[in-house]
């Protein structure tokens, strides 16, 4: 299953009693100008609930599924049960460009949403109907799908308690960018594209310098002397992440930024390409000290 947005899980659990066993309720949040998530994959029998968390009125209109929510006022909800496999795009007719899509598959595959480093072991999670039998993970790097792993119950993992019954798992070491899907005798799942990168991991640390200054140190692993890094701050007046300083990593694959002010502001270091803009990888988000 797609991981539920935080806060929605408890509500979804309470509503689950109203829908058939195994089926789940999955939330989509209607924001000012977008649906989040805009793409969602579910099993037949699942219920999708749209909750309007914006201050605007929205609606949800499907072209093919024959479902039209009518107006959803701020804080309002609308829901629909999906029983037939297929891909169903929808729009908000009030707000131009506000679009979404629900995919209904006999299996639902979930995996990493961002790029991973070559050689990483990636965890896949598959929601399957009860009594599904063997569920395989298949990959296609351009020559057709071939099985690479068999999914099974989680082993000693703590996330087990969050899983719906029937969720199985598999770890696959990825070596190239490819499309993945889950398959069993009853059909195949949605497809996930896993992008593989050779960009090194970026780590960053922050400490307090003298006279109200913050010192951010960064390093790349494996070592990449000369690589370009940009320090970004998340600033309210910049409406997002804003580049404030740039550097090349030294011979020990490290760089250091000294900043004045901006206490409490989120900061991150981004490894960038030759244009100093295209992001190859980013550090975790730090908070500048007070």
């Amino acid at each position, binding site marked *: 299953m797609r991981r539920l947005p935080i806060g929605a899980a408890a509500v979804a659990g309470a509503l689950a009693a109203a829908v058939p066993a195994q089926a789940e309720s999955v939330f989509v949040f209607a924001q000012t100008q977008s649906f989040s998530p805009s793409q969602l994959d579910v099993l037949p029998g699942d219920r999708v609930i749209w909750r309007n968390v914006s201050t605007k009125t929205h609606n949800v209109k499907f072209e093919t599924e024959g479902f039209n929510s009518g107006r959803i006022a701020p804080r309002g909800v609308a829901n629909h049960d999906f029983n037939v496999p297929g891909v169903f795009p929808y729009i908000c007719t009030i707000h131009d460009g506000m679009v979404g899509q629900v995919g209904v598959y006999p299996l639902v595959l979930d995996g990493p949403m961002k790029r991973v480093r070559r050689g990483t072991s990636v965890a896949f999670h598959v929601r399957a109907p009860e009594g599904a039998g063997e569920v395989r993970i298949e990959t296609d790097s351009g020559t057709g799908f071939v099985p690479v792993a068999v999914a099974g119950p989680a082993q000693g993992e703590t996330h087990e308690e969050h899983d719906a019954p029937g969720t199985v798992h598999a770890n696959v070491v990825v070596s190239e960018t490819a499309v993945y899907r889950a398959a069993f005798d009853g059909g195949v799942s949605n497809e996930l594209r896993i992008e593989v990168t050779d960009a090194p991991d970026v780590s960053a640390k922050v400490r307090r310098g003298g006279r109200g200054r913050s010192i951010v140190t960064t390093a790349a692993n494996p070592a990449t002397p000369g690589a370009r890094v940009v320090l970004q701050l998340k600033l309210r*007046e910049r*409406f997002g*992440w804003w580049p*404030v300083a740039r550097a090349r990593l030294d011979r020990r694959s490290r760089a250091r930024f000294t900043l004045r002010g901006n206490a409490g502001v989120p900061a991150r270091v981004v490894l960038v390409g030759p244009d*100093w*803009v*295209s992001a190859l990888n980013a550090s975790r988000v730090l908070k500048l000290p007070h």
Partner: protein
Amino acid sequence: MRHVWVAAVPTTWNIVPNGRDGITGATFAPTETVFPTVVYRRFTKGWKRPLRNAPVANVDHNLVPGPLIHARVGDRLRIHFKNMDATLRNPHSMHFHGVEYAPSSDGAYVPGFSGRDGNVRPGQTWTYKLRAGRNSAGVWPYHDHSPSMHHSLEGGMWGMLSIRGRHERRADREFVSVFAPMQDFQTINGRAFVGNTPIPRARVGDLVQWDVMAIGSEHHTFHVHGHRWRTAAGVPEDTRTLGPAESFRVRWREDAPGTWLYHCHVEQHMEQGMIGIYRVSR
């Protein structure tokens, strides 16, 4: 005599550094917003060391627009220009509005008539000799007028002259706002959308001056929320129209604390990024 050292330098420009339109939430990939270009950059004497064009710098060193060149009526100016365009290897020049000069300082390319001033090749230099005359008080554009003018103007090769009258005091804050299209965006100083466009800052009580001009082939309107100024005839207004290469300055004594919008009121241009925030503190 005022000496200014300027060079045409290659750079990589990002029109939307935060990657988004902060008002609608639309996002943009670097492939849509980043491009190689050539810009004017201020240097120390003899082009020894590059300087920032603007006092408040970010990671791009505020290279668009070119340096704001100050003078006073009666001043003579020597603008020493060097073409350092080593990547695209185009000719460049500087052509100034609003000031007095001989044809050899016009900086415009006319085959058979103009000299090296209008066609400064890579590696070459030219000194433009200008005079701020009686009719020069105000703000004026300068820009590339060489054979590569049209390409250069789309890439941000323009800047402003700010000339005070003989007895005029300097404003406490001076903001340059150039309205110009760039790639698929409508920009202020080469940047599109709130947060990316310049954030002018002032304090209540400051005498603020906005230097405004339009570059390109379209008309724009300069509008600031929460503020008014007076025309030469004494009529208050809060929106003024500019056509290509037109320029004006407006002044007011700041009395409105808060965060305000300023933008071009041609709605299509607003949607394409010609909008910013102006912050006034107490």
